[in-house]
């Protein structure tokens, strides 16, 4: 594994400025970013988004580059399985703007998810909406040189694709070659699955990872600093070597407890990773 595969995400810095986030990554020697396109660091809606030229310049001046991007969907008006034709078009406009912005930022990957169903509606209906949306977005991304990587959600968030099998089914249903798989090790641990199972199932179609520590099966602690959970870091890195995984290892440190001092969280996290990826 190479150092530049470690990509930092900025979500846990949302109580701080983007400048503060970049300064800390520069200090840690991080070079790759997965940009979480949320306020106050980035503004994205269905009609407009932040000045990507300025963001790209600011990021480069700190010695970093945006390799992947995520358009936030939790606590937003938009989700991938949006009910209703009108609202579904608003969601498409939002997520396609995210893809446009990602391309302008120089990213090669945009992460997506399945969205979620309404309690009481047939799951198949929500899954159909999700597959249709993801197909459209995959085509839109393909035309702009962006690969879409679909991450599973936890069962408490969505039942559409909350496991390896659910992810496989949804990617198949979406029927577009540009929609690939990604693993979120927190969601993976929640389901009691292993990284080897994911790498075996998808092979080179597993193009991306949110690579975080977690507390284990069925627990809600799923996006932690390495060392705070129970996942076998060294074993997982060895597994990736065996399967020849060369994608990013995005550090999506998304637990609220890290937001008071995200810099300290990153120091511990990167310190732990550097023991095995010098």
């Amino acid at each position, binding site marked *: 594994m190479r150092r530049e595969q470690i990509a930092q995400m900025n979500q846990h810095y949302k109580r701080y400025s983007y400048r503060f986030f970049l300064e800390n990554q520069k200090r840690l020697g991080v070079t790759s970013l997965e940009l979480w396109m*949320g306020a106050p660091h980035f503004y994205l809606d269905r009609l407009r988004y932040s000045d990507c030229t300025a963001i790209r310049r600011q990021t480069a001046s700190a010695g970093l580059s945006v390799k992947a991007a995520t358009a936030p969907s939790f606590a937003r008006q938009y989700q991938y399985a949006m009910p209703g034709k009108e609202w579904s078009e608003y969601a498409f406009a939002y997520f396609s703007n995210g893809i446009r912005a990602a391309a302008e930022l120089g990213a090669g990957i945009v992460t997506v998810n399945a969205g979620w169903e309404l309690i009481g509606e047939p799951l198949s209906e929500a899954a159909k909406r999700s597959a249709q949306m993801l197909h459209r977005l995959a085509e839109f991304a393909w035309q702009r040189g962006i690969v879409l990587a679909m991450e599973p959600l936890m069962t408490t968030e969505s039942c559409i694709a909350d496991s390896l099998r659910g992810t496989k089914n949804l990617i198949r249903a979406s029927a577009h070659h540009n929609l690939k798989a990604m693993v979120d090790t927190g969601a993976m641990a929640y389901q009691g699955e292993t990284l080897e199972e994911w790498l075996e199932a998808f092979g080179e179609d597993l193009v991306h990872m949110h690579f975080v520590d977690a507390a284990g099966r069925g627990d809600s602690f799923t996006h932690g600093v390495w060392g705070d959970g129970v996942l076998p870091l060294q074993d997982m890195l060895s597994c990736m070597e065996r399967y020849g995984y060369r994608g990013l290892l995005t550090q999506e440190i998304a637990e609220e407890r890290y937001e008071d001092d995200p810099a300290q969280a990153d120091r511990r996290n990167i310190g732990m990773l550097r023991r095995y990826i010098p």
Partner: protein
Amino acid sequence: MLLYGVLHSSERYQRMYLVDCLRDQAEAGWKDVEIYGQVPHLFADAYGISGLEEIKKGLEAFALEAAVFRPGVYQYDLCADPEDPFGAASMGYYRHMAAAAVKLGAKMLSLNSFMRIVDGDLPERKKRAVKAVKMLSAEAGPVKILCENGGKYSAFSALKELCDLKSAVPEIQIQMNLAGALEAGEKLSDWLKAFGEDLKVISVPGFLLREMQEGTHTDGEWPKDCLSALFQSSFCGWIRLENYEAGYREAFRLCGIPAGGL
């Protein structure tokens, strides 16, 4: 205490149909509800709103009224610079929500979107927030703006800062987040002294009530004592139950309030 009603918020029903919330509220016997304005019940952004008519019809069908209209917070920030696209979008969104509150016939419009950026210019952010609240108050007409202590990540995190906001915009009304206030070492009596009858809503967190029910609360009797004190106080307004799965009846039983309210 003079209890106007108990507010169940449709915020809990974000993965359910609005009718489920309205039916639950009607069956509980309370007339007023907090409508949380977000998908899948309402779509709103900086450019418009969709779904308001369905909410109005639902309220009429169950003979309910929207005591509070609470916009989905999303990413917007009333402390942001309105000259900036993000700040402009935030104001655009809240202006639509103010208009929505008027159309729904809500009594109050809850605003809690004041980001505290740790390395930002807090005084400047607060100044912009005051300006935004004044503008929205004017646009909301008969609907009163309701602001609360937003916790450590809010520009108006505690009692003192909320007092400053109230001084700057005297017509606003106040919601007390009970858990937040108690964590900050504030007492209900402090709040009543500061705001009097402009303290209109007290938001009681579900986790406290659940802990009391389960007997797992280990921080002494203060939630129950506090709620008992509340019912003996001069407070006139609504109690808002936050995310309490067992329902309001159980919550009040724990506090010694007779079923069916006061």
